[in-house]
């Protein structure tokens, strides 16, 4: 699949934004993170900034963005429509939580309820994003039991690493938040390795034989219907060389998981100023790594239409 930057950025940014929003909603609403104006403002601005930038970016690949409002109508059948509805609905409790926690400096009561609802909305939106990909049968690497949990785990992981950086930056970091961010990063690493292992051993029942209805023997493409690349090949025929794929997987592991994990582990034993810098670096490094991870998620996914063009 062609890795369109707008979609790669969209899923990475909104995942991190919703992860951070969910953590702020739960921990802030219940009073585990003290209601502080500047901390709250920066935290909510970061979460909402990532979410809004991501959502705007996602409209960048639409052919007719001025009609995007129509996408809220088909939630009964379409995961993309459900994503749109869930993302907009989440703004309502988020706004209430922001008013209560940031502007009024309160927690508990209705602020906690709004925070929890915002967290539920954030998790729901991430699930709908994951299901858009997990529901596509023609792409075996996406239509797998690994896809939906991956979106949730990575949202929680990037969100918690951002939350830790935020708390460390305001010198109110806690070992619990730090440990959660570190464990989430290790969990994300494990899940990604398991996903790659699963995909590399995938035996796809759909072949050039079933695609053409020609049973038995081999089916070899000898002539394409067109001399130039068409829409199908540009959109779904993206191919990545195995050696680049291996190298990019190593870059993903280093940037998204290994380096952040080492930095976060170091935060346990370093004084505040170093801890804040290391936490911020871990978050930035991880987001860069997740962009590479998401790029590979597209680039390594193979659509059945490529069978018609001779993919084995």
């Amino acid at each position, binding site marked *: 699949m062609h890795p369109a930057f707008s979609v790669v950025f969209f899923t990475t940014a909104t995942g991190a934004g919703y992860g951070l929003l969910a953590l702020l909603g739960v921990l802030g609403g219940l009073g585990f993170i003290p209601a502080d104006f500047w901390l709250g403002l920066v935290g909510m601005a970061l979460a909402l900034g990532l979410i809004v930038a991501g959502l705007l970016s996602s409209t960048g690949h639409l052919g007719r963005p001025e009609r995007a409002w129509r996408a809220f109508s088909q939630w009964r059948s379409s995961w993309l429509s459900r994503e749109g509805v869930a993302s907009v609905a989440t703004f309502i409790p988020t706004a209430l939580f922001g008013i209560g926690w940031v502007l009024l400096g309160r927690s508990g009561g209705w602020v906690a309820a709004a925070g929890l609802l915002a967290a539920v909305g954030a998790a729901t939106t991430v699930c709908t994003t994951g299901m858009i990909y997990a529901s596509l049968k023609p792409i075996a690497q996406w239509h797998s039991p690994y896809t939906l949990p991956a979106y949730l785990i990575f949202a929680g992981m990037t969100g918690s690493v951002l939350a830790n950086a935020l708390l460390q930056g305001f010198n109110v970091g806690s070992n619990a938040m730090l440990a959660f961010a570190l464990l989430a990063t290790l969990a994300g690493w494990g899940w990604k390795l398991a996903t790659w292992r699963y995909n590399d051993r995938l035996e796809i029942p759909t072949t050039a034989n079933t695609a053409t209805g020609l049973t038995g023997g081999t089916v070899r493409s000898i002539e394409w*219907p067109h001399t130039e690349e*068409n829409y199908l090949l540009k959109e779904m025929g993206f191919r990545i060389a195995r050696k680049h794929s291996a190298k990019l997987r190593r870059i993903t592991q280093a940037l998204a998981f290994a380096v952040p994990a080492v930095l976060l582990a170091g935060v346990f034993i370093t004084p505040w100023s170093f801890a804040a810098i290391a936490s911020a670096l871990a978050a930035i490094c991880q987001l860069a790594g997740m962009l590479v991870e998401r790029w590979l998620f597209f680039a390594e996914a193979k659509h059945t*239409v490529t069978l018609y063009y001779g993919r084995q």
Partner: protein
Amino acid sequence: MTCLPSHTDKKLGLVIDLDTCVGCQACVTACKEWNTGGHMAPLTDIDPYGGHIDGVWFNRVHSYEHTTEQGGRTVNFPRSCLHCEQPACVTVCPTGASYKRASDGIVLVDEDKCIGCKLCSWACPYGAREFDTDVGVMKKCTLCVDRIYNDNLAEEDRVPACVAACPTSARHFGDLGDPASAISQLVEERGGVALMPELGYKPTNRYLPPRARSERAVKVDAPALEPIKAEGGFLGWIDRMLSN
């Protein structure tokens, strides 16, 4: 609504005979010619005389070499929308632009509602949908919905343009939901198959596999050529002696 109808009165579709298709591309050009002025018009061509030609087509003919223990053969393979009974391209549509008609099962796009998100083209395993970058909306085969019900055309012309154009009658049109229809009988008789049945889209269109090779067929292999000049040496001498 992008929810699917529970039942369609008819299952209109195509049956394509891979035994008789000669890969002449007549169906491809007839389709383009009709549909660039039809229901989903235009079928935009980008840079048609330049070095990077691109454009929207509803029907593409591939050529394959199918090699089995019985030998190899060339199979020309027209590929277009199969008007599935379970078209995920419809259910993934967030706007209601894609729909399947309850009356005849044809899958269509309402171009005025399409936002061009392209998700339907990802959801189609068959590559039936092509995006029009110029108009910014998705396009697909309409089964010539503007021909098959068109009272202005003579009755024999009320078939999809690809079917009307095929010089070898490799393309057939009809109601695959009616077991008594000529097209259903043809599928029954020739063992017509659905493409990628394992994905569960339940395509309406059927492909008739190439017929088995006949042992009675005329041998068309050319005889081995005579050597131009006899070899020298002992064998050459024998050859010359025997040729006298």
